[in-house]
């Protein structure tokens, strides 16, 4: 399988005349995503004149550039060089990591360099914050406690941010707590709700319509336009949900609102 991934060719294509897309594959896959972020970081470090910004997704990196300073052809050449060295690095990385699921090991820490660990996201499960947890118990034939345990038992990689400002697409949800989306989406999901939609889990950063099953709520703001950066977690980093009761939730929320809360990172 690993060998097959390596065979996958990197595909570069223009997206208009001010951006190009580097596509590493066509699947949602930890290895592909790691390569996306590796290239993003390398571009950041290399500082090629004319690159304006980059947008990572599950399997691709969109690069915006200024054609007055950098032509498509020249950027392609530069990327070819970077990708060549990146490939060597990825192979090395795989040899030392060799684990399919990140559990806070070396790779996670390395990729969380900017923050220094796995972001702890307190979550108050069930009750008024997680109105769909009871339905999930019935549908999945698993107790609420077990659902919470499984949801908190994984360090989720933020594969990408999209859809809404600060909305994290998280990879790694335990198969046992997958749950199809609601047949009729809610017209308004309150900000900070934690939900499950099929094989994905995530946090709604702002009030929004949506069809995911709501299992809890975090007191943390995933999007705050006054802050720099305006989002709590960046693509390529890891988060872990930590269960808290209603009282702790309220206490943390108060701290967040008064600006004294400092995000916690776990090893």
């Amino acid at each position, binding site marked *: 399988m690993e060998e097959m991934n390596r065979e996958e060719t990197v595909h570069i294509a223009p*997206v208009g005349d001010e951006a190009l897309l580097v*596509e590493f594959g066509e699947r949602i896959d930890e290895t592909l995503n790691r390569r996306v972020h590796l290239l993003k970081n390398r571009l950041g470090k290399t500082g090629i004149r004319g690159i304006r910004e980059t947008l990572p997704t599950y399997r691709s990196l969109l690069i915006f550039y200024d054609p007055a300073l950098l032509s498509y052809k020249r950027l392609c050449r530069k990327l070819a060089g970077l990708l060549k060295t990146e490939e060597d690095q990825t192979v090395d990385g795989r040899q030392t990591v060799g684990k399919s699921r990140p559990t806070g090991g070396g790779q996670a820490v390395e990729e969380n360099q900017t923050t220094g660990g796995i972001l702890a996201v307190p979550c108050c499960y069930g009750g008024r914050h997680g109105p769909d947890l009871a339905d999930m118990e019935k549908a999945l034939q698993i107790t609420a406690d077990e659902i919470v345990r499984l949801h908190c038992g994984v360090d989720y990689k933020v594969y990408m*941010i*999209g859809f*809404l400002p600060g909305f994290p697409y998280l990879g790694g949800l335990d198969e046992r707590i997958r749950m199809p989306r609601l047949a009729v989406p809610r017209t308004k999901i309150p900000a900070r709700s934690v939900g499950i939609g099929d094989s994905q889990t995530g946090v709604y950063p702002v009030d929004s319509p949506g069809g995911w099953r709501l299992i809890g709520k975090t007191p943390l703001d995933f999007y705050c336009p006054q802050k720099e950066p305006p989002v709590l977690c960046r693509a390529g980093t890891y988060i872990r949900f930590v269960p808290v009761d209603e009282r702790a939730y309220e206490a943390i929320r108060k701290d967040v609102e008064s600006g004294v809360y400092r995000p916690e990172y776990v090893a």
Partner: protein
Amino acid sequence: MKMEIISAGPLSTVQDKGRFGYLEYGIGQAGVMDRDAFQKANALVGNRDNEAVIEATLLGPAFRFDKDTLIACMGADMQGRSEADGRIVERGRAFPVRAGETVRFGMAKCGVRGYIAVAGGIDVPVVMGSRSTDCKCGIGGYEGRRLKDGDLLSVFDANLSEKATKRLLKKSFSPMQYGTDIVLRVIPGPQIGYFTERGIQTFLETAYEVTSESDRMGIRLRGPAIEGKGGMDIVSDGITFGSIQVTSSGLPIILAAEHQTTGGYAQIAAVAAIDLPYLAQARPGDRIHFQKAAIEDVQRERKKRRYSL
């Protein structure tokens, strides 16, 4: 100086070039739909090239100032006139406005989006590096929303000495005429391989009609379905202003200034940036003809025209 919005029109927002550097956080670029009209309107009133202006849609606003100033209108012809003396705001020239005088714009005679620049530029807070309104995220512009009747905008001071004004009033651009058939050069995109040869031929050889379900997020088109080899769903990629996505119905959507940052439909092609101003002025019912272009040719043309971001 204050600018009082007497009547805002259906969708008038404060915009500059856009918000750059926040795409990876899920925050789009927003900004003006028609960069060309925006730059010219600013130039006519002596503004630096990224001062915030009002982008009006189909029906223009009415407003007045508490001091004498200069305004300029480019883009759609919204037939502005002074209610004090009936003078017409010609597109392509600066227009002096007296304190207290109401200027009222009407329905767009041609084009869709009118750009009204005020000498000095509109003074709204810079949010994440831009004054552009992003209605979806509720940030930028005036309180993060479209303008409403009664809003009171601040305008930066401008150097409007007699000499400077005289010089500015001499400046002119020929106003654009917008036809109902619009040719857009397109560069084949990352998922061009998702489409059959017949599908690509359909895309390039038939006219697509602009529908009324078009807005600052995207221009939706009607016409023959574009044949794909399989499904149109992809694992989400980043998208740009000008990206052409084909949905499962086979119909293309051209993403506009306020598009979401990522999309899950196949991108068949993207519009050349120098042609986006024409797209911005396309009215429901107009016909769009896509013309295939090579990235090298488009970038060469930009250089020749000294088109800059």
